[in-house]
């Protein structure tokens, strides 16, 4: 057959659906280096390639995927999900670990808060002791005792420094009701008592209270302590438990 006669069969040959005798004739032409047939078959192969591009995209089935993986010797088991119970156990373990660390973290936070509060209390106590020491050690400090003549009265001392303030050290203080607190007063001569701070006694009935700041010793008649409501009062509402007279020092 001539090249012209074979021309219409190039595409069939490229698609490998040419029948005999055309297929044999084209192969014979190609084997002997027929340039016309070689160029024609080359174009037909390119056309056949483009035909493939006209197909709509298709999603391969899972069965095709399995066959392809099997053909390359891949183990399908490695691609499968873990059994449900394994995942459930893993999730439960993670949950237990998460709860454990959450509880532990909360415990640490509470400990840190508790220690911070203790540090604040100790800092305040240290500051109070420093102020008390300053008053006691001051060169112009006046010292007055109180409660010495009663059978089980509150007893103690009051230290007054004109420049540093007033220090009260007491013992035998009765426990106040839950909604009450002790309040110290500076009582001027011929004038109303002036509030000098709130304080609570310790479990053993002792107390240390400081009212820092200047004090006009010449115009102050006494230092007193009453029991008041938790918020304190502008003026005493109960009979003083402690009265330390400063009259002898003026």
């Amino acid at each position: 057959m001539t090249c012209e006669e074979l021309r219409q069969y190039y595409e069939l040959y490229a698609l490998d659906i040419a029948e005999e005798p055309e297929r044999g004739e084209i192969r014979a032409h190609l084997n002997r280096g027929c340039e016309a047939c070689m160029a024609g078959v080359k174009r037909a192969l390119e056309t056949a390639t483009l035909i493939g591009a006209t197909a709509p995209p298709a999603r391969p089935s899972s069965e095709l995927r399995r066959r392809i993986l099997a053909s390359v010797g891949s183990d399908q088991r490695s691609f499968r999900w873990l059994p449900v119970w394994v995942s459930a156990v893993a999730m439960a373990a993670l949950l237990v670990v998460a709860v454990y660390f959450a509880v532990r973290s909360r415990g640490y936070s509470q400990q840190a808060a508790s220690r911070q509060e203790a540090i604040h209390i100790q800092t305040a106590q240290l500051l109070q002791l420093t102020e008390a020491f300053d008053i006691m050690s001051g060169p112009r400090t006046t010292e007055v005792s109180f409660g010495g003549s009663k059978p089980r009265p509150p007893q103690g001392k009051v230290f007054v420094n004109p420049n540093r303030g007033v220090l009260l050290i007491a013992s035998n203080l009765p426990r106040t009701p839950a909604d009450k607190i002790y309040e110290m007063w500076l009582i001027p001569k011929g004038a109303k008592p002036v509030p000098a701070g709130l304080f609570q006694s310790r479990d053993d009935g002792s107390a240390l209270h400081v009212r820092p700041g200047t004090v006009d010793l010449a115009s102050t008649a006494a230092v007193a302590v009453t029991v008041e409501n938790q918020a304190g009062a502008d003026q005493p509402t109960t009979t003083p438990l402690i009265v330390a007279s400063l009259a002898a020092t003026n």
Partner: protein
Amino acid sequence: MELAYFEGLSQSEMAIKMGQPLGTIKTWVRTALQSLRDELGVAVSS
């Protein structure tokens, strides 16, 4: 063309599947390929 290209059937198998004479199938295939060659020729030559 779908039978030939995507399913890999020979012209004889297409004739059996479509219930047509082999000569008719050959004519249809040649005509279809001729049309494709004309349509895709520009892309091929470029």
